[in-house]
């Protein structure tokens, strides 16, 4: 009797297992739908940028589906995304990636928000040979591990502020400059720092202050006092939104005069809105700006994207949304060129990607990073109390002249 029960249980579990694996091997494409999976931060500390990312994905899915979908072997398919909330937690993100792949049978992934979470998920997608197009993990270390299934539509982190150093050197008549820098101790900011070190070496510049900010940073008065005492030509700060807001608050309060101030995450921090005129002249690295002249047939131009996004979600799209939308355009293009749902065929098609989207040109380097799109710099400029981000570099897209040097606080109204 006991044996019979055991046999019964075993066979039931075997059948269930077989059923699960059977359904999952076909779940990548269900009926007319190509199913993509994504773990995304809908709660926790990255939730606002997580939502920007999700809105970007959703906007593109809707647009592509409305405009005919994806054509593979003569049949039209539509995109569908399964989302899970990773709670801004890398461990949870990796678990959810496993779940998406093993339980939901997802064969194509979209990236999460932030370098840290992408780093947590990439080993999983690599293990199961799942192509992942990600739009929000810029850390250089993602592209040096030899991942074969990871593709990033954005420029790597070390490129964020290199342009700023070049600009400073140019303004200094081609001579090297004295740089003061403060970076948070996280993967992304430290990569931005490496970029600055490279640029400093290349241009013969000298780094006179090199501070590392703690994660729970909310006070950088000591760094700024040192800056005040040593008078560098450029001050570079990167510490996500917290770093940008803290820097501007304390620079304005301590009346720190530097000829040039370069930062990251200004638009995510809504710098010009939260600090108003105090943030004027800050130079910010950005992956995208609506005024760039790139075009595609789905979203038209950056300006059109900006308008449509505002209509749909009620706020202007930060670059996190734009790059997320671009990730789906890349997937669509790859599916059509592969003309198959075979994972490796899709992966090979992704490798050969060379296209223009409203977000910028996309072509993947050997590590999976986008090598076709330069970073841009904008500068916060104010008219009265209204402040705006104006593109100032590279010169090809500059809508405004780069204002240099920053006027002293005693001369600012």
């Amino acid at each position, binding site marked *: 009797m006991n044996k019979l029960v055991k046999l019964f249980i075993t066979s039931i579990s075997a059948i269930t297992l077989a059923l699960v694996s059977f359904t999952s091997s076909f779940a990548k494409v269900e009926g007319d739908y190509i199913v993509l999976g994504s773990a995304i931060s809908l709660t926790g500390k990255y939730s606002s940028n997580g939502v920007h990312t999700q809105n970007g994905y959703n906007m593109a899915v809707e647009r592509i589906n409305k405009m005919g979908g994806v054509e593979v072997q003569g049949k039209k398919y539509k995109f569908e995304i399964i989302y899970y909330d990773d709670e801004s937690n890398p461990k949870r993100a990796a678990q959810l990636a496993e779940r998406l792949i093993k339980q939901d049978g997802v064969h194509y992934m979209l990236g999460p928000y932030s370098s840290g979470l992408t780093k947590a998920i990439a080993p999983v997608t690599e293990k199961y040979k799942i192509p992942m197009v990600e739009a929000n993990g810029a850390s250089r270390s993602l592209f040096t591990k030899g991942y074969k299934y990871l593709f990033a539509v954005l420029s790597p982190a070390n490129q964020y502020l290199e342009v700023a150093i070049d600009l400073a050197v140019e303004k200094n008549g081609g001579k090297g400059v004295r740089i003061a820098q403060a970076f948070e101790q996280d993967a992304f900011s430290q990569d931005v720092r490496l970029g600055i070190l490279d640029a400093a070496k290349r241009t013969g510049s000298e780094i006179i202050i090199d*501070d*590392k*900010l703690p994660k*729970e940073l909310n006070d950088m008065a*000591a760094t700024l*006092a*040192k800056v005040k*005492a040593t008078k560098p030509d450029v001050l570079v700060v990167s510490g996500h939104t917290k770093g940008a807001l803290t820097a501007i608050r304390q620079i304005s309060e*301590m009346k720190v005069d530097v000829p040039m101030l370069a930062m990251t995450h200004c638009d995510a921090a809504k710098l010009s809105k939260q*600090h108003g005129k105090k943030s004027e002249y800050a130079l910010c690295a950005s992956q995208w700006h609506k005024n760039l002249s790139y075009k595609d047939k789905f979203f038209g131009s950056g300006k059109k994207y900006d308008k449509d996004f505002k209509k749909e979600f009620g706020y202007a799209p930060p670059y996190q949304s734009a790059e997320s939308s671009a990730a789906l355009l890349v997937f669509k293009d790859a599916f059509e060129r592969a003309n198959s749902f075979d994972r490796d065929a899709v992966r090979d098609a992704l490798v050969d990607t060379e296209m223009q989207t409203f977000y910028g040109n996309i072509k993947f380097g050997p590590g999976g990073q986008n090598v076709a799109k330069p970073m841009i710099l904008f500068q916060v400029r104010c008219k009265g109390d209204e402040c705006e981000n104006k593109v100032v570099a590279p010169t090809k897209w500059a809508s405004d002249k780069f204002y240099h040097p920053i006027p002293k606080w005693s001369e600012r109204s």
Partner: protein
Amino acid sequence: MDFLIFKAPMLMVQASLDGILLGILFALIAYGMALQWGVMNIINIAQGDLVILGGYIAYTMYLVGIHPAWGVIVSPIIMYFVGVLLYKLVINKVVDRDLFISILATFGIAIVFQQLMNFIFGADVVVAQSEYGTTMLFDNSVTLPNSKIFSAFISVLYAVALVIYMKKSRLGRAIRATAQNARAAKILGVDTEKVYAATFGINAALCGIAGALISITLTLHPYVGLPYTVRSFMIVIVAGLGNLPAVALSGMGLGLFEEFADYILGTEFRIGAVFMLLVFILVYRRFKLSKKREYLK
């Protein structure tokens, strides 16, 4: 190691003033912690999150067009009731249990608070603008944000008011009696249940004031509460319970220590240095105690 600070005397002045002003603010939070630790024997891990919640109250006022400095009056009033409510819901169930249970319970509260604030106010880092300007000393080489001076002033004001209240008022006397011996106080007719609720409410109110001050001097984010908990814990450990001047001194000392550690060791070791100091102090205290015991033998 960077000894720039010893070469430039103005940096020394700047660091000292920054440290002291910040330390006074920490001391206010620590005083609340010392109070309820002493009275209820509870280590409140959610202390920092109460601070941040207080900050968000001031920030909300700022958003609707009221000057955030009024937060130092509105925020403690609201936070007092939040504290009392928290006591009635959770804390009263752990007050007589051992310390470990209270740590777990308040840790849970901290998580709930963080998620709630994230849900209501969003995960963005926010600041409120006081537009108080800057005081410049020594020909502009030392700058002090007026908002920091304001926050130190308000902290001192509230601390003094609280000391007087504790000494003179009926409730204050009841709180002190309960802290000395809860059972005896109960026998003598003190409603300890009420005293506990009020103590927790006062602690939350102090956090509310500190939070409002932080909203105009530093930045707010749903998840930055913990460093404030750690700092106040540290100050209380050094100063001991129920000793306000010691709390104030230890707070300023910690502020100074942090600033100097930042200059000399580098910003990345700022928080690390605080923890190192905590370890040293605990070891030193043990060492002193063991010496005493030997003497008694």
